[in-house]
């Protein structure tokens, strides 16, 4: 049972981690994109549709990535190129994405999806306890972990990452040094879209292989909170996603055990924990000021 619970927690955390890592990169470049939920919805429907039409889950994931990037580019053009208010544009993208996904998906409601096989690493997956836990997951779980490590490496160990952080912290200086703020931010936003698309595809292709409108059910907003929770550090993002996954799974177990706590209270527990964690972190000014991209949410218009 313990192993089963851990396994469920990891799968519950995976879509959150995907969406949040994409948003983390976008925010590191100084862009606050509140459209994660919308991009996830579009990714969910396009991934499901493509994998069902072609019978190839890989093409589904690809379609979800592209769909997420297209949705993100819409945000990028409006918010970065036309310098519209980022908050409003992001919220609009969420509403637009949820509506658009309903339109695209109307033919796919009530259709079972193409199952994605789990990847069992030969030899290792037969190990007791850690066997299936570490070496018998669906490919997305491994993907999320690799992506997180790669993102950490990119942000802190590469020149590209340095430029990304420079643009997020001081766009004017980065511009003066000759880096294209617009291009960096646009690419970061596209990356965020691709990740949100995969997060959506995870829900519609692996978590519950089916598609219905609004099946993202607010997970995009949780991902946004997780980025702040993680104070823009990829490592902490993993902890945050696992914590949120754990609380939401354990409350269901608490109910099944017959613990006499009102279910409504248990249902809101993951959100309460998120809020408390955010408050605790926000109290630590030193920690926040080190990592918060200084120009987060502020549009940049070059003088020349």
């Amino acid at each position: 049972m313990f192993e089963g619970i851990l396994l469920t927690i990891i799968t519950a955390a995976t879509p959150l981690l995907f969406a949040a890592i994409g948003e983390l990169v976008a925010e590191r470049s100084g862009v606050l994109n509140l459209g994660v939920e919308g991009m996830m919805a579009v990714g969910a429907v396009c991934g499901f549709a493509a994998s069902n039409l072609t019978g190839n889950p890989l093409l589904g994931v690809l379609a979800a990535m592209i769909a997420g990037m297209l949705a993100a580019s819409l945000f990028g053009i409006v918010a970065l190129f036309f310098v519209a208010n980022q908050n409003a544009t992001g919220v609009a993208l969420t509403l637009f994405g949820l509506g658009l996904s309903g339109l695209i998906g109307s033919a796919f409601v009530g259709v079972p999806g193409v199952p994605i096989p789990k990847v069992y690493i030969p030899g290792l997956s037969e190990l007791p306890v850690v066997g299936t836990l570490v070496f018998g997951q669906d490919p997305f779980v491994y993907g999320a972990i690799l992506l997180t490590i790669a993102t950490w490496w990119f942000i802190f160990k590469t020149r590209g990452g340095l430029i990304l952080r420079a643009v997020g912290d001081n766009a004017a200086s980065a511009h003066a040094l000759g880096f294209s703020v617009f291009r960096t931010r646009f690419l970061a936003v596209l990356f965020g879209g691709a990740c949100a698309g995969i997060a959506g595809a995870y829900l519609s292709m692996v978590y519950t292989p089916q598609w219905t409108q609004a099946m993202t059910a607010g997970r995009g907003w949780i991902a946004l909170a997780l980025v702040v929770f993680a104070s823009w550090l990829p490592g902490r993002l993993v902890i945050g996603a696992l914590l949120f996954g754990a609380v939401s799974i354990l409350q269901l177990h608490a109910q099944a055990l017959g613990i006499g706590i009102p279910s409504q209270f248990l249902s809101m527990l993951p959100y309460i924990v998120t809020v408390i964690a955010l408050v605790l972190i926000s109290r630590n000014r030193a920690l926040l000021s080190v990592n918060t991209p200084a120009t987060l949410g502020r549009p940049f218009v070059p003088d020349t």
Partner: protein
Amino acid sequence: MKKYLAVIGAFALIAGLATGASAADKLKVCFVYTGPHNDGGWSQQHDTARLALEAKFGDKIETAYVENVAEGPDAERAIERLARSGCGMIFTTSFGFMDPTIKIAKKFPKVKFEHDAGYKMADNVSIYNMRWYEGRYVQGQIAAKMSKTGVAGYIVSFPIPEVVMGIDAFMLGAQSVNPDFKVKVVWVNTWFDPGKEADAAKALIDQGVDIIVQHTDSPAAMQIAEERGLHAFGQSADMSKFGPKAHLASLVDNWTPYYIDRVQAALDGTWKSTDTWGGIKSGMVELQPLTNMPDDVKALAESTMEKIKSGELQVFKGPITKQDGSVGVADGAVMDDKTLSGLNWYVKGIDDKLPQ
């Protein structure tokens, strides 16, 4: 004055053009859905009945529907628009459409309204609903026969009487086969969140249940049962395609017999405002298809359904003991519909505390 008359004349002409041609000889039957017409569950079942009406009555009627109507002020606008567009009969298919339906019905006394799942009536508003608990009782029997662990998991939305009724009926059915049967209940506090429903199913299975029942709308739990090699029951529509090996029996809403009756009455001019609560007997509640079970279990399920049809078996007939050990229904007595529709206690043996 002349000018006013002209304006009124023009309006009358437009109104005549809009409604006259069709409304004069055909009955226009209209539907308001909460979800998309092909949602694979609740709204789709209503739409199936709408199509059955078209097939049955052919040229005598025409139908129309509005989908994705939010409960509340939007519903009022949608219903009024239909009433203005010449609908002679309007089916509003969700609990939250109750007050809007009553309000618009007052404005259009000649239009016949049919409201599903509510309790407010008027001279031109009928109400209708289903006795799903009858099907739940049969599901309970099947579960008790099929379960190896003797424990079923029940995923539920909100603590309203209809849901409590279902849990109790399921337990009564299960206990009629195995008095020691246990039910674990998990409230997800939503009608629809596939991810959460799947998580709830996983949590229940991890705690040793081997059969899942649900009173939520998505087929997620069925998929998890399939993945884990266990059994589950479908909700609202036939969900067997989501779990070909896991599926036992879906609780299917069949609105067709009722809708045909009502439209026939409207065409005959015998339509009156009525209160219908139909179950297995009237063909509204169905348990089908029965799959993945041995012949003796299938036979038991079928004979129980026959007994419910004939009236020999009543689900809420005493003796029924409440969870706390007190008397729920006295020996030989049958719970009346009014008490039943306000049910707020568990029967003995359910492993959960009912949220109040």
